[in-house]
């Protein structure tokens, strides 16, 4: 099916990608500076998958994320101030500082949260899809997970059940070539994640995860099938993270040339070239957008810095509803 995204939307998508990139780069620096502690997994290089997939959703749809979730959250419209505050462990963070990078959500926008457990969101997403079916809602659920997560048993359990019951869920694997230091070649028998869809009799598709439009198309089609009652789709997006797995990863497990090669396929630069060619962006505008974006990120940092710590008296509150 040939579809295209409006110029306005493409532009917005581009801006969102910039925001994610700048946000993540800033978080990296904040970690190095000791402003943020704990852990965080950055998605620098994977922005097209996050934005392309999320923009294929409707407002009433839902999505679940992973440990590498800032991009998905920002793509869905998460507030950078509150995300940053959460990373700082501050009071206005999405989880009031309790969750940190791997445990925040905004149910009001259908963002059901990051997940510290590799593969942990697969079943939750499938259950959200089951509920939508029972509730006769038109909601489709998009489930992000990594190549590494696809080796968890629960992947198999959920694909099987989603396929059996034709649930309105889109399983989107961000195959960035590695699970931490484990390359796909040594962890995925048979070599392809998308092809595993066949085992369950559902649609499977590989796509260039650094091509926003390709991702958007794949998810749009999968979303349509899901909404029509045709069941789940497994989409494998090939992409790459430039950064280490998490703070302090020296990336000894991959060759420097590899990163160089992927830089040539950078999703943001590529998008910029396309937008310039199509006249959606005019020359020099990028600078302005970058400045805007950096200001936005700086504002988030300032917000988080100024924010208060959670109240000590709240420590044991709210374990139960």
């Amino acid at each position: 099916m040939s579809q295209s995204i409006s110029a306005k939307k493409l532009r917005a998508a581009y801006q969102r990608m910039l925001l994610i990139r700048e946000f993540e780069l800033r978080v990296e620096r904040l970690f190095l500076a000791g402003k943020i502690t704990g852990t965080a997994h950055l998605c620098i290089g994977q922005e097209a998958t996050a934005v392309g997939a999320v923009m294929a959703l409707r407002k009433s749809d839902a999505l679940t994320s992973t440990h590498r979730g800032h991009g998905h959250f920002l793509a869905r419209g998460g507030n950078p101030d509150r995300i940053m505050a959460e990373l700082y462990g501050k009071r206005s963070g999405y989880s009031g500082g309790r969750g940190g990078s791997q445990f925040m959500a905004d149910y009001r926008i259908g963002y059901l949260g990051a997940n510290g457990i590799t593969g942990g969101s697969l079943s939750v997403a499938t259950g959200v899809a089951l509920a939508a079916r029972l509730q006769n809602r038109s909601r489709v659920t998009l489930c992000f997970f990594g190549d590494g997560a696809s080796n968890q048993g629960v992947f198999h359990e959920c694909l099987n059940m989603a396929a059996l019951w034709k649930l309105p869920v889109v399983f989107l694997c961000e195959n960035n070539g590695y699970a931490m230091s484990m390359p796909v070649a040594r962890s995925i028998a048979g070599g392809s994640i998308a092809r595993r869809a066949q085992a369950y009799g559902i649609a499977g598709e590989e796509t260039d995860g650094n091509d926003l439009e390709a991702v958007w198309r794949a998810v749009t089609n999968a979303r349509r099938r899901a909404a029509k009652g045709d069941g789940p789709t497994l989409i494998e997006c090939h992409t790459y993270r430039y950064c280490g797995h998490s703070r302090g990863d020296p990336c000894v497990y991959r060759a420097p040339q590899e990163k160089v090669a992927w830089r040539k396929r950078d999703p943001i630069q590529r998008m910029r070239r396309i937008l310039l060619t199509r006249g959606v962006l005019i020359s020099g505008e990028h600078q302005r957008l970058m400045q805007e974006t950096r200001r936005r990120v700086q504002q988030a940092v300032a917000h988080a810095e100024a924010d208060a710590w959670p109240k000590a008296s709240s420590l044991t509150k709210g374990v139960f509803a």
Partner: protein
Amino acid sequence: MKTITAAAILRETLAAELTADPTVMLMGEDIGVYGGAFGITRGLLDRFGPQRVIETPISENGVVGMAIGAAISGCRPIVEIMFADFVTLAMDPLVNQAAKLRYILGRQASCPLVVRLVAGGGRGYGPTHSQGFAAWFVHTPGLKVVAPSSIADHADLLHAAVQDPNPVVFLEHKRLYGWREPVPADRPVVGLETARTVNRGHDLTILAWSWMAVEAAIAAERLAADGITAEVIDVRCLQPLDMATINESVQQTGRVLIVDEAPRSAGIAAEIGCRVFEASHEYLEAPIRRLTAPDIPVPASPPMEQLTLPDATTIAHAAMGLMETLQ
């Protein structure tokens, strides 16, 4: 007053919940035509259809995780785990997801999930079909844990669990399924944080729950014949614990015996023992006594299993011993 088994009253209660609230749904293995391995859901598929009674493949991890997804979407899933032993496969979603959602995500998230576990020994089912793991869940902040004993409580606490906006681990003892008791039609509402005084006594307090509360009640009758009046409290709500009721009793009797069929170490009896001690030590006339299974897997062989699990005889015996001890 009608007389009914735990199996039947659980079935009635599930049916009532399904009828009263369209968001209630059941999930589990063989809960359809088969009616569940113990027949608890028999007839419910016919009555409520496959949208409400969802029979799943054997995928405990995925199923509990899906139930969480459904719960945060406004459903009230009730999952049956055919034998509690298999919840070992679903600890991740229960502990790392369900238990933490509310505390971390705040008011936006509620997870009204009930996980029904078929627990306990005494039926010769062997080491991988006789466990309960209640202590694990008590040790997991964010989960409520309930283990009814009386037949009425099977209905009332299940109802309360389904109504509760939090994840509740609901332990059913397989020996109670066929147990029959009269159940008054008009009963006061029962909360998920309440203990139940089974009978009054002033010589010692026996704390037990689930099947052990039945054994304790029988022991109390035997003790009465020997002139010892035991106050038996069915703890029934294991997390949170109703320490007020327990301490009040202990402070009157001065002696306490805690009975649990689970292995001894780091079990719930230890927690209750410590809390009683912390709150009531100056009232104690004898050391707190725990009667539990030893730290062994539950053997299948009937006489060995019987030796493993406390029963009315060993409870009465321990109680007598306790009456002879001086602090």
